[in-house]
């Protein structure tokens, strides 16, 4: 191979490598039932303080991704609070993660819909990408070992919680 051909191949490979790196960097993560839950220590909402999903290892955790501007999130907030109150004595909690939002709006949302369960805040799309999220709200049930037991890309209602989530917690499924 001549020097000129070698340089041309090298240039083409460099461009392909650059494009591939860019695509991989921007791509969302794919997660599935049975995978370890994507976890990271995040600031609590309101602060100060930090928590992660791993802090609740040994309990069932329903992770709820939400944003203040999302209308279905407003509708499901009281439903999640009721679920938390009904199940907190059964080694079960809810962890809310606020995403794609600004802090003032998120705090205003929590004043309007106070929750007894912990709330964490993720800046921008970082946690949404980690959960392979396509929007808000999305819900993920995590078993006591820290594995995903259920992935629900949408809002929950009483019926869904009673028919899909609670049987898993009670060990009926």
């Amino acid at each position, binding site marked *: 191979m001549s020097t000129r051909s070698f340089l041309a191949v090298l*240039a083409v490979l460099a461009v392909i490598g650059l494009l591939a790196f860019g695509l991989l*960097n921007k791509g969302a993560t794919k997660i599935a039932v049975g995978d370890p839950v994507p976890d990271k220590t995040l600031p609590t909402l309101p602060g100060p303080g930090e928590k992660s999903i791993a802090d609740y290892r040994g309990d069932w955790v329903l992770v709820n991704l939400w944003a*203040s501007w999302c209308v279905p999130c407003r509708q499901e907030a009281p439903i999640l609070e009721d679920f938390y109150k009904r199940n907190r004595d059964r080694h079960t909690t809810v962890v809310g993660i606020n995403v794609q939002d600004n802090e003032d709006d998120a705090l205003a949302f929590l004043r309007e819909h106070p929750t007894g369960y912990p709330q964490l805040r993720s800046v921008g799309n970082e946690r949404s990408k980690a959960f392979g999220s396509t929007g808000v709200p999305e819900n993920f049930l995590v078993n006591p070992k820290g594995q995903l037991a259920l992935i629900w890309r949408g809002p929950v209602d009483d019926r869904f919680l009673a028919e899909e989530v609670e049987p898993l917690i009670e060990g009926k499924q």
Partner: protein
Amino acid sequence: MRRRVFAVALVLCLALTAPAAGSVAQQPAPQTTVNAIEAEVMCPVCGTLLELADSPQAKREKVFVAKLVATGKSKEEVKDALVAQYGKEVLATPEASGFDLSAYLVPILAILIAAVALAYSVVRWRRSSEQDRQSAKGKPAQAPRGEDAERLEADLSRYDL
């Protein structure tokens, strides 16, 4: 008497309008405009410029920007606040560091490579045309032979030259 009444009225007017004037003076003048910011930042949820977005998230982001502009923050300060709230994805232009730096470097490199390739091609083309001219000068014109010579003769005789 009339003068005294006028003086009292004037003092009262000044006393009443002074706090208002003071509050206006305290409000900082905007250093940038909402439009200028919205043209340079993204709606991270929609993936479009904020000025073109109309989603619920974009509407809240616009309110956030308007509040900061009204408090006299500069364009850079507003952008920094947006990054702190929405992450780096909120910036419409890539950062000049890390992988994003390639967005600035690749076009410059491509232009340089294209310029070098063009210069190299021009030099080669000029050299080869020079060589052709030199070789053409050195060689005597050859007379046509065989069939060509016969055809040339026939053509010339037809025109009776």
